[in-house]
């Protein structure tokens, strides 16, 4: 069964209790975990995008980017400290940033009467939450809240208009004819990519996805391929004897929904680093816009190379023309339904080509942008995974990226080269963003 469909079913089930919880949170004033409107509405957006709409990681990053881009423009319109992303409407310094941020997020999620948002059907869910949220905001000086609302409406409208006809939900790319090295659907579900169109979406930051083209997978007869092959075959196998329990946990840990995990990390960092609402708006926008473009570039590149997954490569190694790779027709990866997880869906090889790795592309962009934002790699943080139901801690941002690169091999779903080149692709996006966007004014 397709794990993504699985996830959707799970998501639908969980809407009702969530609504109740949110309603309770809204009533209990002040909310316990409240940081500011940027972090509150990032959490709400995550619920809307991942839990309620059930978007898989790769398309979900585009939704996060739209929300956080509009939130940034709304807060920055009042602060005026940095270049806008799309627009900079007129504002007074006393206008409510909280009202601006929450309105921008709300409107990108549900839209307007004349301009659809991401999830028009969720309007009944979020309308009462938004109204209650606004009602709790101070209106000091009088009129500052309404002014903030107007600013948020302007920036969210600009975002929704900018993303009209941007290629989302378009047709999937053509698949190459079957051949050794070419991707085919993988056991046990033989699923199809639910969002193969991501690679043709208009990028948010970089001018064109072509500039993110990777060097490509190793030739099947090369020594580098042999090395990758033997590594994933051994350490990524379902019952590997060389993978340690901690490595198994790490592999499962990072299979939690990538954009949900990372946005939780950003909220953790916002609190631990004492960021204010202006810094939060910028951090969340930079991170999600970078990750979205890395994902667009990655998916464009995946369907450019259409390289086979380890499970296909190992089972059919007698067709690869490489005498140093031994076939195992029954080989299974760690990411198999037999591996226990604490929340559905069960683990399988993701239903799209191997090269480059989606997780390391997005996480590469995220980690390099974190280093850029904080001006250092040495920030410790912890994260919780709903897939392993464990918490893992890191002393540096780059430690997380290193672990993800390994984790996708330990999971038996990627060759190391796909992980490495994904991280490089993400770094390219981060560098482009650092040079061209979110520049301080003056």
């Amino acid at each position: 069964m397709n794990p993504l469909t699985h996830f959707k079913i799970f998501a639908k089930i969980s809407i009702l209790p969530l609504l109740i919880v949110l309603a309770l949170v809204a009533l209990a004033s002040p909310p316990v975990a409240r940081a500011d409107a940027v972090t509150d509405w990032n959490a709400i957006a995550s619920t809307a995008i991942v839990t309620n709409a059930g978007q898989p990681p790769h398309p979900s990053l585009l939704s996060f980017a739209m929300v956080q881009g509009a939130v940034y423009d709304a807060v920055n319109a009042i602060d005026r400290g940095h270049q806008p992303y799309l627009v900079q409407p007129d504002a007074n310094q006393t206008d409510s940033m909280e009202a601006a941020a929450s309105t921008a997020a709300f409107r990108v999620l549900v839209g307007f009467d004349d301009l659809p948002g991401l999830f028009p059907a969720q309007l009944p869910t979020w309308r009462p939450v938004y109204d209650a949220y606004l009602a709790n905001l101070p209106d000091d000086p009088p009129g500052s809240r309404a002014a903030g609302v107007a600013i948020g409406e302007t920036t969210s409208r600009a975002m929704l208009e900018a993303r009209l006809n941007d290629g989302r939900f378009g047709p999937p790319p053509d698949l190459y004819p079957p051949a050794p090295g070419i991707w085919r659907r993988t056991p046990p579900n033989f699923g199809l990519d639910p969002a193969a169109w991501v690679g043709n979406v208009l990028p948010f930051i970089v001018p064109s996805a072509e500039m993110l083209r990777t060097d490509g997978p190793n030739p099947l007869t090369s020594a580098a391929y042999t090395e990758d092959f033997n590594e994933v075959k051994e350490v990524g196998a379902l019952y590997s004897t060389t993978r340690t329990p901690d490595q198994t946990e790490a592999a499962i840990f990072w299979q939690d929904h990538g954009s949900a995990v990372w946005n939780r990390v950003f909220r953790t960092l916002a609190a631990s680093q004492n960021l204010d609402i202006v810094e939060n708006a910028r951090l969340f926008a930079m991170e999600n816009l970078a990750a979205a473009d890395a994902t667009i570039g990655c998916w464009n590149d995946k369907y450019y190379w259409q390289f086979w997954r380890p499970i296909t490569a190992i089972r059919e190694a007698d067709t690869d023309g490489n005498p140093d790779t031994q076939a195992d027709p029954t080989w299974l990866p760690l990411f198999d339904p037999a591996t226990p997880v604490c929340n559905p869906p069960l683990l399988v090889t993701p239903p799209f080509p191997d090269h480059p790795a989606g997780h390391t592309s997005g996480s590469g962009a995220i980690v390099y942008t974190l280093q850029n934002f904080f001006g250092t790699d040495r920030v410790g943080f912890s994260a919780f995974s709903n897939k392993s139901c464990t918490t893992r801690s890191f002393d540096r941002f780059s430690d997380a990226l290193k672990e993800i690169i390994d984790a996708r091999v330990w999971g038996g779903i990627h060759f190391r080269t796909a992980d490495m080149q994904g991280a490089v692709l993400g770094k390219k996006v981060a560098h482009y963003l650092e040079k061209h966007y979110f520049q301080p004014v003056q």
Partner: protein
Amino acid sequence: MNSLIQFKKVLILPLLIASALVALASPAAATLPPGNAVQQWNKIAEDTVVGSGTFQPEGVVYMAYVSAAVYDAVVAIEGGFEPYGPSITAPPGASVDAAVVESAYRTLWAYFPPESCPASPPNVREFCLGVRPRLDAFYAEALALIPDGPPKEDGRAVGLAAANSIIALRSGDGRMTPINVSSSFPTLPPGPGVWRLTPPFAAPQTPWVGFMRPFILQSLDQYLPDPPPSLQSLEWVEAFNETKAYGALNGSARTAEQTFIARFWSAHVVRQYNLVVREVADAHGLGLLEIARLAAMINLIGADSLMATFNAKYHYLFWRPVTVIDPTAVTNDGFGPVPGYDDGNPATIEQMGWRPLMTTPNHPEYPSAHGSITSAVAEVFRTVLGTNQINLDIHGFDPAGPPGNLNAVRHFDMANDLRREIIDARVWAGFHYRFSDVAGVVLGRQVANFDLRHAFQPVQ
């Protein structure tokens, strides 16, 4: 968002009837190209510009002049969008057809005087010298199709005003004549990586295009690409090896299909992309204003993309594959010694006698001009059609046909498919490195996105 649908083809039927009547009355006069007035004069302009021997970048500049004048003439009467130049007041009822004919005719006539014609080759010179008499004949024939009366005269006055204002606006914009003339440019000290003339050693192609006043961009170095990779980098070695293997005239690694694609893209871009404009107009049932706007977008944005590309080319002055793969493929061009320089990288292996599949264009390598304009055109169609499923048929060169033909057709579902193919095609042709094609594609898209935000906007 899609504004293409709202206009109607009201003018076609009377025009067809009029054409039939004229054809009956005087068979010799039935020489106007097919289509409505905008399509006809777009084709006349294309034939004039290409037939007079313009190189591709300067050809697109001439097309931009004409299509800007036609667009401003139509917009003056129909409204709905910002004009390119100063706004022109049109009397009520002015004939759009007359405005189109007058604006195109006047603009072309002004820009193709006999003294601008190239000295050679003889057949091109002869064609160019015949431009004005031919335009006069088309003009007389086209005007005869429009009923006499105040609307016609008002339309002609609008067209004349549009032509005059574009000519005035672009006066002193850096265009140089005669057609094809070379010009001086800042040079770099000779050394590895520096551009040299390539066989058959024609003079540097229209460097002045890179220093013109842009049509919409703020400046031509607004999106100057990062420099090409270092000759000591792995990226350089990979690019060198790919072009050497896949771009060679003889003994290449190309498949027959790859060779066909490389040749397909040798067609003149003025012909390729203006033909697409006319075909899209038919396929989508566009009205005169929308065709005029689309033609202006393609040619003005195309011109900006090529000017910006030439600016970068003559800024970086990066050497062509033939010069570095075969250092003996140089002449006493004033840009360095004979034989030329080694790249100093032990991982690249030179090959005496290596030649590209297609003749190397006589301008610096980085970035690719064809990549730039193709990417810009793809972005225009993506925006105008309101989807990245552009579904375009592009016409190109068929090696089985005569020189300069556009008999082959390739279909592109997505804007990105077009970009992907042009990147490959220029490597397979043997005169570009992959990184230059990518840089060109990125530059063209940046130019188009800026221009589309700063011109041709709808008005209330």
